[in-house]
């Protein structure tokens, strides 16, 4: 069936599930026969997006639907939380059961998904991707059998002027590594211990397999941008993994917002806790200014703009704005750490975005020092 026909046909959640079952089953059969597919082609892909909406008001989601309408998407309400959208052979479904962490499913080509979702994030201010950093992906990998991982490091994406490889004592500006092994966790550990890739070794995606019964399983590729590519044989199992990750992520973002933003009240006094991210190697003085200017220039992927006050040669205070949501925040940055002061109502997603992108493009060994927060970044999962 063509995507338009599917859009017209599906009338409830069960039909959507059955349709995805068929897609997964056929791709699974193809994969079993070793017919390698073009990346993402015909595979079911699910994404977790954050629609900044801490109070989970319906209005924010309605505004997003209005935005999609203005961009000429056909829209069909399947039930009160589930809608399907179609335009130019691009079909996707949004499950807004949690109106803050939206689940988006699409069987369309990966390129169509990437282009459209990039467009949504750039143009609709409250919508952001979810950002799964290395420790979060690694912790969540325990939810199934850890089959493989991928590491892609690219310093040039944010550090155009600066010689970040020199800062990190690296031989590489870019690194791409994919390991499939009987024991990928052990391999990961070995490579880390060898320190061969030093600070250029983030986890960019993982593959896990979870068996639900003798013949029902989910095999998922999960990347740091909150994308889940389903390779199992059953939608129910796929969605089990997606929702499990979504809940852990939701808890993380809400912990950042509730426990780490600073706020004064007459009853409770002044409470909260600035977040500290430590750099593994000191930024050399000659790079300090250049690196900070790159980070706060308003560019992707950090989307931070700020007024940098260099108080010392290796110390600066930055009055910044998260250009995605427009929220103000303050940074103190020295050559070996940054401290972030969040105000109440600031979106916690900006911290996950910052951390994940520091790992992917600056140093994979950056580390949050707040104990309470570290625990949420490393959830125990059953």
């Amino acid at each position: 069936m063509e995507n338009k026909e599917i859009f017209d046909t599906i009338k409830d959640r069960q039909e959507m599930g059955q349709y995805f079952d068929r897609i997964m089953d056929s791709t699974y059969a193809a994969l079993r026969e070793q017919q390698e597919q073009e990346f993402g082609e015909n595979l079911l892909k699910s994404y977790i997006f954050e629609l900044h909406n801490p109070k989970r008001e319906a209005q924010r989601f309605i505004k997003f639907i209005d935005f999609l309408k203005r961009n000429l998407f056909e829209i069909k309400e399947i039930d009160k939380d589930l809608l399907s959208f179609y335009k130019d052979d691009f079909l996707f479904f949004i499950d807004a059961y949690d109106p803050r962490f939206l689940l988006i499913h699409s069987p369309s080509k990966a390129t169509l998904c990437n282009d459209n979702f990039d467009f949504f994030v750039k143009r609709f201010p409250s919508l952001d991707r979810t950002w799964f950093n290395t420790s979060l992906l690694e912790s969540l990998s325990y939810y199934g059998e850890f089959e493989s991982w991928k590491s892609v490091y690219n310093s040039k994406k944010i550090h155009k002027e600066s010689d970040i490889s020199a800062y990190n004592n690296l031989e590489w500006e870019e690194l791409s590594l994919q390991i499939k092994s009987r024991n990928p966790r052990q391999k990961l550990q070995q490579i880390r211990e060898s320190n061969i890739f030093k600070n250029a070794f983030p986890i960019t995606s993982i593959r896990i397999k979870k068996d639900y019964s003798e013949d029902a399983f989910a095999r998922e590729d999960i990347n740091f941008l909150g994308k889940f590519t389903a390779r199992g044989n059953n939608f129910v199992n796929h969605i089990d993994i997606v929702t499990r990750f979504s809940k852990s992520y939701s808890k993380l973002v809400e912990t950042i917002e509730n426990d780490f933003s600073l706020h004064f009240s007459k009853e409770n006094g002044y409470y909260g806790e600035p977040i500290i991210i430590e750099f593994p190697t000191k930024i050399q003085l000659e790079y300090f200014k250049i690196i900070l200017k790159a980070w706060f220039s308003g560019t992707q992927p950090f989307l931070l703009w700020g007024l940098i006050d260099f108080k010392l040669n290796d110390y600066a205070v930055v009055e910044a704005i998260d250009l995605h949501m427009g929220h103000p925040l303050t940074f103190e940055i020295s050559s070996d750490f940054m401290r972030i002061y969040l105000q109440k109502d600031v979106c916690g997603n900006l911290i996950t975005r910052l951390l994940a992108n520091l790992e992917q493009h600056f140093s994979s060994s950056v580390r949050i020092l707040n104990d309470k927060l570290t625990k949420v970044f490393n959830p125990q999962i059953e």
Partner: protein
Amino acid sequence: MTSEEKHLDLINAFAGLCFDLPKWPNTLYKLGFKIKAIEWQFTNTNGGFVKPELIIVSQKLNHAILLECKSGTLDDDQLKRYSDVALDDIVVKANFTVAGFDVTFFVYEVSLEEARRKIAGSFKFPLIVLTGDKIERIADINKFSHGDVDQDFRNPIDVDLRYRPYNLIPFSNDKKSFPDSKVVNAIVVGLTSMLITETVGTVIGVLNFVQKYIVKNNLFDCFLVADQKKIIERCQGLMRSIVKKYYKNYLTIMIKDGAEINPNKYDIIKTCHSENEGADSLKEKKQLIRIAGNVIQDMGDKASVAYQTSLDEFLLSSE
């Protein structure tokens, strides 16, 4: 860093002890102390004014500490006024229900000898000094009156000054510690943030603006009403001229009735066109950053120069 800024920095170093910050001691946090007031003025038993930088209270210990930070010289008259503060002044006039209190002076090492000379033998205030690697109560002068507090200050507290917090208390109404150029920076960041976040037609009062973008973290409520008014008065003139000169295409200022008497009663209204909520046009964000750069160049803290390099590389413009 100017010597004036050091005063606000000293306050922050002490404030840090009331939080559970990584890499900075949490001595007072562990004892249940929380910051309850900033620059809260009240009168002592003899009717003399005192205005400690911070008042911190521990409900657990039923105890308050009044903090006076000194980056320069100690004023004899001020010392006398603090010595005349009694418990009922704290409870009845400052409105903090506690069973005991201390006034403590917190100084940099350079001021230590003068502080020691003036306090020792004459006053009962514990004296704390911030050195290159320690926060230390001067042992041979006075103790804290509460045993638990004194116990935790009995030995010098190791600190790594590289990790000292500077922005827990982000604003001081003291012009020297927080000059107008910094107010301009805060206004520009605030206006940019507001223009991105808010929808067309949004009305924001100056009071709300100052609370959210300049004093921050709801700390405005920490100040006495009279000081709140002074803060508003200080910020609003700058804000008005900035909005009128640089943001006339985006914002309108509406003066309410009675503004002549109570000048905080004017509103800023977002008037620029935007497709839906906030500045969702990337082009618009770029323009806002350009304007912010112009304001800072003309009026703000010249140290803040990030915008100069940012515009050339502004990838957001890839519409």
